[in-house]
């Protein structure tokens, strides 16, 4: 332990603690902007400066570690003035249209302006102006709002290992940019959206999908169906001030009904289809000498990553569509026929924790019914925005259930929303199919948890299956390099583009740097999903009665012809940079 004095009070903290962390322990907040724990620790913005006795100049509290006997002052007039100057300077080069900004109310810069009681723009001068990039189906980049904290750059480069954006030019002209300022659509961006989660201001945001949804809802001719991904229900409440990890499934369904959706279905049912298809595909490859290891394909950011960077490994990728696409296809075929609805009038809205799904919707070969599987994708954040626009009092809403007959899903599907969940769900089905009897094991602890790469050996009554679970694209790259170099001795790999899986997706509620540093957001959201699984009566996808019915009545065998037509897709190599 190290003891130090902060603002005259003694504080004891563990060795290796930063001044910032130590101050937080003593109930003193130090403002930060560029700091993102473990990801962007460079001390560039200078908001977090403090005085340390005996040291020339200010100390950078977000990085610098405490030392025994250190005397820190976090709030001297000189410190406050320096921070205030930094804030004034940032504001002098910022598009200050807060009223029309997506991040109005959740912006870290706005919050600081409020806290510092900024009542004038002190420095007037040149401002950097840049074209807004809204060409991609997923991300809008508005450099005019950028404060050059570089949290996005560090996330893209170091967490995801992509480097689609970087700092370019220098000095006052510095920008965060793609190669040659091209659109994100034309470079190696995977649309994972982790940069949006990292951005403290409104410089990065999702491409809006709500306008199309409002339009469909207002169109009497349209039969508008919502489907919600598992991770949405454990995060949506945060947008309304509820605890992280609260399961708001009932309120979510109610609010969608209030918004006027004709039906509200659960994407979890789609996830059960995915398990059926993926497990079948795996067993086929495993027993008949197909291309192994097989890589899961339900994360579109990950799929795009592979197509851009490892086209030679496309044969390893499962041909299964992601759950919401499968489900869209089922809705527009089986459900439409069963209920005598013209599929051309059905408008499927996927509510997702993900912004890559916006891109996925536009991919080729996602329209086996002759219609687009999905007509609009909105994120958790956008759904919250619609609820707010409609002035629905979310917190006091009564609970509702998903609509029949596509409402009931298994516990296996619920855990799809977290890293390891797809693998665990698949293993539950694979184990029984391979061993040929009711395999008791339900919980695969080895593939749970927040680590970037998890490896496990599953013993299926003497038959060994080696599996790997990776989340975050940098970890994905590690696995792909192993496969490429022939070092892979495993057969089944689950990969999710976002670190921690869909609960931490690019469409989820944005948490501040401080919350990310001090709360286990992933753990709490994931725990809520595991709790849903635990409480479910049916916890294996192949036991879902609705699925059994649809396979029997319509699809035939899992992996069969009809299933392939509707539930599977194809991949193709993609140019990383579409240069002129």
């Amino acid at each position, binding site marked *: 332990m190290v003891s130090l004095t902060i603002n005259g009070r003694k504080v004891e903290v563990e060795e290796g603690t930063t001044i910032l962390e130590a101050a937080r322990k003593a109930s003193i907040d130090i403002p930060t902007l560029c700091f993102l724990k473990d990801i962007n620790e*460079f*001390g*560039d*913005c*200078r908001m977090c*400066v403090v005085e340390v006795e005996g040291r020339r*100049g*200010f100390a*950078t509290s977000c*990085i*610098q570690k405490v030392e025994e006997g250190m005397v820190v002052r976090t709030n001297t007039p*000189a410190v406050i*003035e*320096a921070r205030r*100057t*930094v804030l004034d*300077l*940032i504001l*002098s*080069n910022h598009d200050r249209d807060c009223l029309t900004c997506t991040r109005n109310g959740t912006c870290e810069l706005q919050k600081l302006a409020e806290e510092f009681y900024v009542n004038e723009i002190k*420095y007037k*001068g*040149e401002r950097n102006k840049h074209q807004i990039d809204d060409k991609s189906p997923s991300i809008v980049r508005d450099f005019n709002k950028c404060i*050059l904290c570089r949290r996005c750059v560090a996330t893209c480069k170091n967490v995801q290992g992509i480097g689609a954006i970087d*700092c370019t*030019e*220098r*000095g*006052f*002209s*510095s920008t965060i940019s793609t190669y040659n300022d091209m659109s994100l659509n034309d470079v190696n961006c995977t649309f994972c959206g982790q940069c949006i989660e990292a951005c403290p201001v409104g410089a990065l945001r999702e491409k809006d999908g709500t306008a199309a949804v409002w339009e469909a809802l207002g169109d009497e001719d349209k039969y508008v169906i919502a489907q919600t991904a598992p991770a949405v229900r454990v995060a949506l409440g945060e947008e309304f001030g509820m605890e992280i990890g609260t399961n708001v499934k009932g309120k979510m369904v109610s609010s969608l009904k209030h918004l006027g959706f004709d039906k509200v279905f659960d994407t979890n049912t789609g996830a059960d289809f995915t398990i059926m298809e993926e497990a079948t595909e795996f067993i086929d490859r495993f027993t008949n000498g197909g291309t192994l290891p097989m890589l899961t394909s339900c994360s579109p950011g990950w799929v795009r990553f592979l197509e851009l960077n490892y086209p030679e490994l496309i044969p390893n990728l499962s041909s299964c569509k992601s759950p919401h696409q499968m489900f869209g296809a089922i809705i527009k075929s089986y459900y439409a026929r069963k209920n005598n609805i013209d599929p051309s009038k059905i408008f499927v809205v996927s509510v997702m924790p993900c912004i890559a799904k916006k891109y996925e919707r536009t991919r080729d070969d996602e329209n086996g019914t002759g219609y687009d599987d999905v007509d609009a994708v909105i994120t958790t954040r956008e759904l919250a925005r619609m609820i707010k626009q409609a002035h629905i009092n979310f917190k006091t809403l009564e609970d509702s259930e998903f609509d029949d007959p596509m409402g009931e899903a298994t516990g296996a599907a619920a855990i799809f929303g977290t890293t390891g969940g797809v693998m665990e769900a698949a293993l539950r089905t694979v184990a029984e199919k391979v061993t040929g009897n009711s395999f008791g094991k339900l919980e695969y602890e080895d593939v749970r948890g927040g680590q970037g790469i998890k490896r496990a050996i599953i013993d299926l009554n003497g038959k060994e299956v080696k599996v790997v679970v990776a989340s975050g694209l940098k970890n994905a790259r590690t696995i792909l390099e192993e496969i490429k170099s022939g070092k892979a001795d495993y057969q089944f790999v689950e990969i999710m583009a976002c670190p921690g899986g869909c609960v931490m997706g690019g469409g989820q509620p944005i948490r501040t740097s401080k919350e990310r540093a001090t709360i286990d957001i992933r753990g709490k959201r994931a725990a809520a999903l595991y709790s849903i699984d635990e409480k479910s009566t049916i916890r294996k996808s192949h036991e879902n009665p609705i699925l059994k019915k649809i396979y029997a009545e319509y699809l035939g065998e899992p992996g069969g012809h009809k299933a392939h037509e509707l539930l599977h897709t194809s991949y193709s190599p993609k140019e990383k940079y579409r240069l002129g």
Partner: protein
Amino acid sequence: MKTLDEIRKIRETKRKELDLRVNTAADTREKHILVCHGTGCTSSKSPLIIDTFRKILAEKNIENVRVIQTGCFGLCAKGPIVIIRPEDIFYAMVKPEDCEEIIEKHIQKGEIVERLLCKDIDNTTVKKLDELNFYKKQKRIALKNCGVIDPENIDEYIAFDGYKALEKVLFSMTPDEVIETVSESGLRGRGGAGFPTGKKWALTRAAKGDQKYVVCNADEGDPGAFMDRSILEGDPHCVLEAMMIAGFAIGANHGYIYVRAEYPIAVQRFQKAIDDAKKYGILGKNIWNSGFDFECEVRLGAGAFVCGEETALLESIEGRRGQPRLKPPYPANEGLFGKPTLINNVETYANITKIILNGAEWYSSIGTEGSKGTKVFALGGNVNNIGLVEVPMGVTLREIVFDIGGGIPNGRKFKAAQTGGPSGGCITEEHLDTPIDYESLKAIGSMMGSGGLIIMDDSKCMVNLAKFYLGFTVDESCGKCTPCRIGTKRLLEILEKITDGKGEDGDIEKLERLCANIQKASVCGLGQTAPNPVLSTIKYFREEYREHIDHKECRAGECKALMKVTIDPELCKGCGLCKRNCPVDAISGEIKQTHVIDQDKCIKCGTCISKCPFHAIKG
């Protein structure tokens, strides 16, 4: 490959052969024509002069005369410079067409070519280099070999004690003894900050690491400083040898020298020095069977001033944008590729071999209490003798400007000197007698810096000067931290406002406050020192700022927007040339009558001023 004995042999025989370079009474029948081949003289065709001499010598079949290309002699203003040894006759501003005469008269007949001799400031004709006032107060340690040896000839370097310090270190000293010697010499970092060199070496030696690096900072970025370039061009081996000694002392066997790509001659010569040293077995594995290995690589900069900052330099060597790292950790602990790294500047290294050979006591006997040894300054601006000077610490600015520099040209008055370039501050008349060392310069609001010394006469506007330096910093800021990225830009904008005649009450105070916060809150030295030129010009020339703001006047007449172009009725002959040339018809007047300028219409383009044959128009 050469053995140590063979190197010693070269030293002995070659030294005898080259005695004429340093001894006017040398016993020889040879003559050496030394031609400066530094960047300054090269720019004014010294390579052609070398070729011409050689051609004529060949045509005339003259033997016993060699033409040697050397490094910089220092007196760049008089270049190209030619010196004939052993008699040490010094010809200034030589043109290729003068070569024939020098050979016919001087070489063949032994007559001095009077018309090519240099005139000193007091108008006396000078025959020998060291008779010049410019050289009298100098003491050349770092520049010892510059202008004496052919920098591309390793044998010549060896002749003048080259690689003798390395031999001494490898065979008769321990690493700790080397560090102790450097510490005791009192040598401090010549890059600008003045950190004690020995201490830096000791810290890097003490740092834990399986691999350590020695780096030479040759990214001389201060606009107006060129001593590092001159050393590399004139005596590259002395830097290489010092890096090896440093490597031995701290336990590193790999060196990098980071040189500006804008210094092609320095790059090429240093690379040749490395290649030649390798050929002789001075670089490589198990040097002279001592068990010590050393390799050295050249890395090129690509035009970023901030890379002179040591951590930005490391980033650049690693192939990234030159963005400084936050310190601590210091490079001594976590430097290049995360390994303990010693970074010193060229001039610092250039002192090392001499300290090793002559001892710490010898070195520390030169200079002041806190600043030992000599410092090289690049003297420039409004001063007669522009060039490179090396003086003992403690010399006054007055001695440098007036005795060595020969004073201010065109009969103008000294106004200020800027040391430390864009990181430094100005020194005024009242401080001319301050002995120059690290502490005294700091005390008067400037800094030593890397050694750029720019002299300004009374035709210079100090607000404009501050604006010039700020413009430089804004261009060169890496953009990483907020205060430097946006703060310096805002400073510049306020200064522009003032020089554009739009200054308001309170602007000076705003500048001062912003400056103070930028100094305190910036990440690296560039940002922390960027406000210095503003603060020091405000400190010493507040009146001038006030005149710009309150009276919209620039006494030096440099700020164009504040300029009032007027016609002197005494001198105007009414020729009408100005009226005809004025692009905005602001001038009126009848022929043979005094003309006048309508100030509201005038755009201060200056066309009339240059057209007036009677110098009647002033701005």
